[in-house]
């Protein structure tokens, strides 16, 4: 836990994550963001689908 806190600055920003991202080229960063955005949208859709399904099954009972 302490070790983890040392990797963060006074605002709680993960310095290691910043350093890791800075090692990538601008194009690699854009692609990483595209992949992350796709994953977020897929998860959001899955969540929405699950909510719709549970609403549907409640209506049927």
């Amino acid at each position, binding site marked *: 836990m302490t070790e983890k806190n040392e990797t963060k600055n006074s*605002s709680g*920003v993960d*310095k290691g994550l910043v350093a890791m*991202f800075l090692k990538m080229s601008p*194009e690699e960063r854009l692609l990483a*963001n*595209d992949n992350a955005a796709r994953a977020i*949208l897929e998860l959001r859709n899955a969540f929405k689908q699950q909510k719709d399904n549970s609403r549907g099954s409640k209506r049927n009972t």
Partner: protein
Amino acid sequence: MHSNSKKTTVADLSAILEGLIKADVKFILVGGLAAVVQGAPVTTLDVDIVHDRSSENIAKLFKFLKSIDTIFRRPDDKIITPKADDFSGLKHALFTTRLGPLDVLAVIEEGKAYEDLINHTIEIEFRGHRIHVLDLEMLIKLKRASNDPKHKQQLPVLEETLRQLEEK
């Protein structure tokens, strides 16, 4: 043609940038993606650009937007397509396209337009082309001045990124 499922699943933001470049549109990449490009570990779901409002550039931008099935992003399901004169004023135009969300901004914080921002950009190499990206110093300055809580939230990450860049 748009459908609701398409609207929520597509995010090929790099393809939007590549399309803008190939269409020879003069623009500055701003917002979250500008921060991403410069190394900030944040994720964004849209492309924000400030465009040059010359009539020649607006014609190129409009042609490109038509080619990627652009419609206004709205809370309801109304499908409204943009017109060329939507880009000549000082308004923000927020769109959904078949490649993902795209915000076309005439001005950003402090009323800054393309010509005010161009000297505060860096040029990056992307797929063999050059893109103007609002530099991290100016991004931070504008986010500090912004009233949008989302902008304030990102500030510590941007500041740490700039700090590490300056250390290098």
